[in-house]
């Protein structure tokens, strides 16, 4: 009995002592804390921001979003050109290596994108690529030709942000059902990025080491830190305590009050930076929920805009860690010109007058759906109630919200979009207000055409003009109540140097020891 117990305890201890990362400059080991679990190493099968950040370390896509200019620049690619409006030709660098030492070829790239287009792959970005990409073909050892279904201005961004190149054949395994293995890279990854995976415990920890044969050229440059360990710590207070104790060097998305408290102790530093996350309320102008309901009336939607004190919400509830938005995108994005937007200053009297003009002097019932930020949503509902709109908050879990959206039950939704860190209005407007989007409650075909015109031409002036029209129309018609864009707080040990790029994407390969 006793020996069995000892054996059991020994097994438990063996598992518990799998690896111990010692954070610090002396060991050239950066320990970063993420709040949400990494459950796969394969970025083609995850859409969490944490996986985006990990993917930037372990994989080099064909293109990268440049931290300074915000443009899509070649990464594993050397150059590109549009042979015609629907044919994108990409020449590859000849010094890109997989972590197993083999060279990345055009065959690998073509295999990757044809796999991503294969319904059997069940990858997270199938719908996105299916929308515009027909196929990819290798044309010689270092040239790939992308055949597109239609002209698509966001193609380079999509190649940069939503796909990781995989070795040819890696997802095909005759021993697996149907001869394919979508999970081939879930637990062990053969990537092309500056860091290779040493070990991975799903939901717990990823240990990375600098890939010694990385070319040290291009937008990512030479990785300055040798080892990076990513630990999953769900509790933000625990994250802060770890930074103060030196057990963790770097955290992100930490609530401002916790980060400020930790920084004031003198044991950590707080770095704030911009984020591209846009918060807004969409309104059922199309009458999907209630045909000819109050929200189908322009003046009612304008009243809802005037009734909100955005400055007050930012100042009092977000403690200033946000900027008020008047646009359906973030002004740092290409095509998001604030000058084009109609602004709705806080004016409850005007809101009441507009409601009365439309025959709603006594207000109306309105369900405001949300899946997060209860305090802010309650504040919004309270301000709407102050002008007579009987707002009722429906705080639900994400899947419930999605289902309600699918069956057209949501008259008003508190929502947000991070634009995948892409500094182009084309990363948010088609998804949220474009034709065919389940989130589009505008019912405005003309607006849809403007947005699609902006993403289906390569001419920058024409794109800008189309986006300007879309921003103007969205705000004039008050399809949304734009709210704010949040800042990001990074809490880190004092021996680190890091500055956040304007696109809001945290790039761990830019972290340096002082």
């Amino acid at each position: 009995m006793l020996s069995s117990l000892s054996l059991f305890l020994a097994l438990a201890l063996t598992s518990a002592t799998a690896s111990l990362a010692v954070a610090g400059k002396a060991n050239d080991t950066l320990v970063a804390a993420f709040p949400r679990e990494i459950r796969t190493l394969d970025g083609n099968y995850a859409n969490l921001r944490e996986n985006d950040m990990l993917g930037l370390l372990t994989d080099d896509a064909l293109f990268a979003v440049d931290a300074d200019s915000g443009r899509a620049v070649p990464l594993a690619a050397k150059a590109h050109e549009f042979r015609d409006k629907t044919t994108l030709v990409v020449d590859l660098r000849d010094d890109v290596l997989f972590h197993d030492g083999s060279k990345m070829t055009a065959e690998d790239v073509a295999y990757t994108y044809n796999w991503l287009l294969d319904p059997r792959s069940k990858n997270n970005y199938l719908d996105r690529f299916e929308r515009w990409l027909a196929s990819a073909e290798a044309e010689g050892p270092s040239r790939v030709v992308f055949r597109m279904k239609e002209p698509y201005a966001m193609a380079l961004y999509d190649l940069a942000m939503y796909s990781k190149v995989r070795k040819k054949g890696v997802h095909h395994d005759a021993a697996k059902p149907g001869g394919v293995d979508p999970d081939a890279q879930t637990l062990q990854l053969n990537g092309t990025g500056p860091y290779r995976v040493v070990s991975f415990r799903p939901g717990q920890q990823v240990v990375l080491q600098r890939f010694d044969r990385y070319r040290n050229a291009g937008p990512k440059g030479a990785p300055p830190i040798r080892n990076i360990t990513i630990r999953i710590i769900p509790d933000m207070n625990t994250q802060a305590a770890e930074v103060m104790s030196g057990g963790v060097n770097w955290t992100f998305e930490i609530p401002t009050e916790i980060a400020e408290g930790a920084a004031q102790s003198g044991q950590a530093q707080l770095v704030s930076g911009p984020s591209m996350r846009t918060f807004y309320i969409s309104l059922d102008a199309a009458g999907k929920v209630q045909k000819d309901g109050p929200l189908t009336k322009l003046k009612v939607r304008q009243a809802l805009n005037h009734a909100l004190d955005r400055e007050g919400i930012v100042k009092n509830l977000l403690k200033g860690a946000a900027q008020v938005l008047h646009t359906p995108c973030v002004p740092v994005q290409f095509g998001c010109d604030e000058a084009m937007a109609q602004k709705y200053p806080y004016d409850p009297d005007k809101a009441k007058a507009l409601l009365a003009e439309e025959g709603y002097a006594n207000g109306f019932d309105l369900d405001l759906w949300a899946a997060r930020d209860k305090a802010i949503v309650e504040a919004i509902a309270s301000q709407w109630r102050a002008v007579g709109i009987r707002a009722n908050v429906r705080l639900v879990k994400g899947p419930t919200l999605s289902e309600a959206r699918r069956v057209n039950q949501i008259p008003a939704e508190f929502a947000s979009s991070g634009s995948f860190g892409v500094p182009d209005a084309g990363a948010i407007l088609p998804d949220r207000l474009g034709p065919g989007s389940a989130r589009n409650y505008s019912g405005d075909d003309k607006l849809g055409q403007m947005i699609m015109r902006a993403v289906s031409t390569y001419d920058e002036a024409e794109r800008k003009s189309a986006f300007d029209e879309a921003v103007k129309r969205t705000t004039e018609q008050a399809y949304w109540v734009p709210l704010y864009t949040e800042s990001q707080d990074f809490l880190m040990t004092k021996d680190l140097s890091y500055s956040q790029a304007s696109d809001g994407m945290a790039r761990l390969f830019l972290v340096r020891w002082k």
Partner: protein
Amino acid sequence: MLRFAYRRLLLACAVTLTLSVITFVLLYSATDPAAAIAGEDATHERVAQIRRELGLDRPLVVQYLDWLRGVLGGNLGQSWYWRQPVSHLILSHAPVTILLSFMAIAVTIVIALPLGIVAALRPNSMVDRFAVSFAVAAQAVPTFWLGLVFIVVFALQLRWFPVSGDATLAHFVMPAVVLGLVSVPAVMRLTRTGLLDVLSSDYIRTARAKGVRPGRLIRRHALRNALLPVVSVLAVQLGNKLGGSVVTESVFAINGLGRLALESILAADLPTVQMLVFVFALIFLVLNFLSDLVNAWLDPRIRIA
């Protein structure tokens, strides 16, 4: 004794089967995992396609029988969210939870039993009042708060223990104490009450009259009977810790079964949640079965009843 064990085992199997039916029906009727898997902006067609691919469009009875056949054949299914076999997930997360739970129950025993015994031997004394007050305080304090206080005091101020994680045995000390303290009130009170009852019984008076020394009287005669309900409660407490240490695991960033359950529930990963509920229920059944056996060994009257 064997017949007793056999009867209990049959009962445990029947309860297990019933439990599996109830959890399966409740889980699979309460949520639509296809919608969760499809993602926020998926179309009706995509959700329906996923439902078909996962076999969720079949009658619930067929799905249950399929699942049961798999479990009996050693196939616990594939996690939709973690993209791994459920058996692998449970086996990889169980060791840390088991270690944490046993350490926590050891903390409970070390604190609660002596405190309960001393309180019973000196009823209404200062020691007794202290023990009862301690129990009330331990019961009132939320674990997440206690966990954070421990982190501030023992990890940040005194630097005795690491803040979080499960890399070494030292990482388990604070969470084990936090988790162990939660069970102290129940076990301490039961020990105290049980011992007080036993100490006033006839056979103890007889033993005293025969001149049995106090220490021997407590150890050999009183405790053996007083501990009967305590064993059962300890089994339940251990079961609680094995299945319900979600908060402690989150605060101390321990990647055990509790966190696996929480994340799987949030992701509507039904194969994992179903199996975890089943495993947690099994743990309780096994522990209850074992505590019944221990009780029957301690008190032969139970075997005959």
